[in-house]
């Protein structure tokens, strides 16, 4: 069990009152809040040990470099990576996915090749493939959903043949909360000789991930959704695959030698980290990983699940409301999207905000999914380590206010 009141004490922003009311922050799936420990770790570097990394033979630079590489090590341990070199720091999950799409895809894919993804992907795992498909002549194909908001594995199986060179799938949908069976997809992908990229933007913050058993070959995620700062993300990849992969960006630190008309690449991970990396942000992410590890990712998952179960129960009390996503908490994370007929999601969010409840409204960067659900927008509440049942109650009460204002109350 988690001591949420101690945890809440580490997040000063939760004290903020919104429109005079207690704040229920229910938008962690978009970005989480940060504990003071993360802010302190970054401020400490800036105030005491700041200099560019990997570049100076002097004290501050050595200290900063050590702290940066220590952060890499922390992330490697957090994911149970085979070695620190498998951790590539990027700007974000989006940047990680683009690094892979350009570094691997642009240099590998050919006309006739297939990229297999799913309709529940975030734009970050669709749009880069549109671009790479256009440049290479490869074709983008989709796996569909069941009526129960799960990946339709039966239909999916038929999509796997030797034309498929890469499977790019989310570890947890940011709209539905659905967690597809990555291990099974890995088996299918490897069976046809394809590599598997998992979009871990929602999975890594909310569930224990061991890359040695996950089945994926590459995994991208962002720091800011897992208590870390903005401006930092990670691409994890199997070392051997990273070693044979071309870099996407060129610049300093990623080279062994630069001649006038050619360059040779440095070893991994540096090959993929062109220029001055967001190293203070990486150090912040290291502190976030420490914080999450101290709680225990099993406990984080369990806490989310409990709140999700409670929220699904309470939301069922709201007349007319429908949830887009699995109705139970099996293989499901704590992102709950819902539709309240007669009130547009954007109006829901505005009214909830007035009541101190922060939820997101819109297409959640998943337009193909929303379209396939027959929606143009939905509202979404999502949970993290600092949320409590009281937040769910505030949500349900505020939905009552929205229904009253829109005259849906026993009209």
């Amino acid at each position, binding site marked *: 069990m988690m001591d949420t009141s101690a945890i809440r004490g580490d997040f000063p922003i939760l004290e903020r009152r919104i429109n005079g009311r207690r704040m229920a922050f229910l938008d962690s799936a978009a970005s989480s809040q940060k504990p003071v420990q993360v802010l302190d770790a970054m401020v400490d570097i800036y105030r005491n040990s700041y200099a560019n990394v990997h570049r100076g033979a002097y004290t501050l630079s050595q200290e900063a470099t050590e702290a940066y590489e220590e952060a890499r090590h922390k992330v490697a341990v957090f994911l149970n990576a085979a070695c620190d070199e498998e951790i590539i720091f990027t700007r974000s999950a989006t940047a990680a996915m683009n690094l892979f799409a350009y570094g691997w895809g642009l240099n590998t894919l050919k006309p006739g090749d297939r990229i297999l993804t799913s309709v529940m992907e975030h734009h970050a795992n669709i749009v880069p493939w549109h671009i790479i498909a256009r440049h290479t002549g490869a074709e983008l194909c989709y796996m569909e959903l069941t009526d129960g908001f799960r990946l339709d594995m039966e239909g999916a199986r038929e999509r796997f043949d030797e034309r498929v060179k890469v499977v790019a799938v989310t570890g947890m949908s940011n709209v539905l909360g659905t967690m597809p069976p990555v291990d099974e997809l890995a088996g299918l992908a490897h069976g046809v000789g394809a590599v598997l990229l998992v979009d871990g933007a929602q999975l890594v913050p909310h569930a224990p991930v061991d890359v040695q058993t996950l089945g994926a070959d590459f995994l991208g995620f962002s720091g800011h959704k897992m208590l870390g700062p903005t401006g930092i993300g990670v691409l994890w990849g199997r070392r051997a695959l990273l070693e044979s992969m071309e870099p996407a960006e060129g610049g300093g630190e990623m080279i062994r030698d630069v001649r006038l008309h050619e360059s040779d690449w440095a070893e991994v991970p540096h090959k993929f980290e062109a220029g001055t990396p967001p190293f203070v942000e990486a150090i912040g992410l290291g502190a976030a990983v420490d914080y999450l590890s101290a709680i225990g990712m099993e406990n984080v998952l369990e806490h989310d699940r409990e709140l999700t179960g409670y929220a699904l129960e309470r939301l069922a009390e709201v007349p007319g409301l429908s949830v887009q996503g699995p109705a139970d908490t099996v293989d499901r994370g704590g992102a709950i999207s819902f539709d309240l007929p007669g009130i*547009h999601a*954007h109006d829901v969010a505005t009214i909830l905000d*007035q009541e101190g409840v922060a939820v997101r409204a819109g297409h959640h960067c998943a337009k193909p999914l929303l379209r396939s659900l027959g929606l*143009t*927008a939905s509202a979404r509440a999502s949970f993290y380590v600092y949320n409590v049942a009281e937040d769910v109650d505030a949500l349900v009460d505020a939905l009552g206010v929205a229904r009253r*204002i829109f005259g849906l109350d026993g009209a």
Partner: protein
Amino acid sequence: MALEDLYREVILDHYRSPRNRQALDRANAVADGNNPLCGDEVRIELLIEGGQVTAIGVTGHGCSISQASGSMMGDAVKGRTIETIRTLTGRFKGMMSIDGANDPGLDPNRPGAVLGDLESLQGVRKFPVRIKCANLPWTTLEEAIKRFVSTD
């Protein structure tokens, strides 16, 4: 900020029963607008005859504010000259801007184009992210008229 300022009854009424929600058989000026952030979409179809909008269709989907704004706009521009519509548009956008509150056009005793029902959208100004919603039908209308004029 009170929610009642935003969600006036007349707005909810236009949202529930939008006016001019039709595809025109015979339109000669059409534009599509959308708000990528919230996904609101609107299509404006106009029949312009003799410098006057003789028919208007406002379709699309979105939040109460964009839908009500489009519905009211249709009523306000129908039968008006392009000239008058331009004045109206300027006045509406003025009302939606930060210093809109001081627009003398909002004085009901003032002669000239009067916003009527549209004035109920004043409360939106207090919810800055929603201003785009209210403006969406109007910028789309401007676009439709611009296209008509340039091909005229």
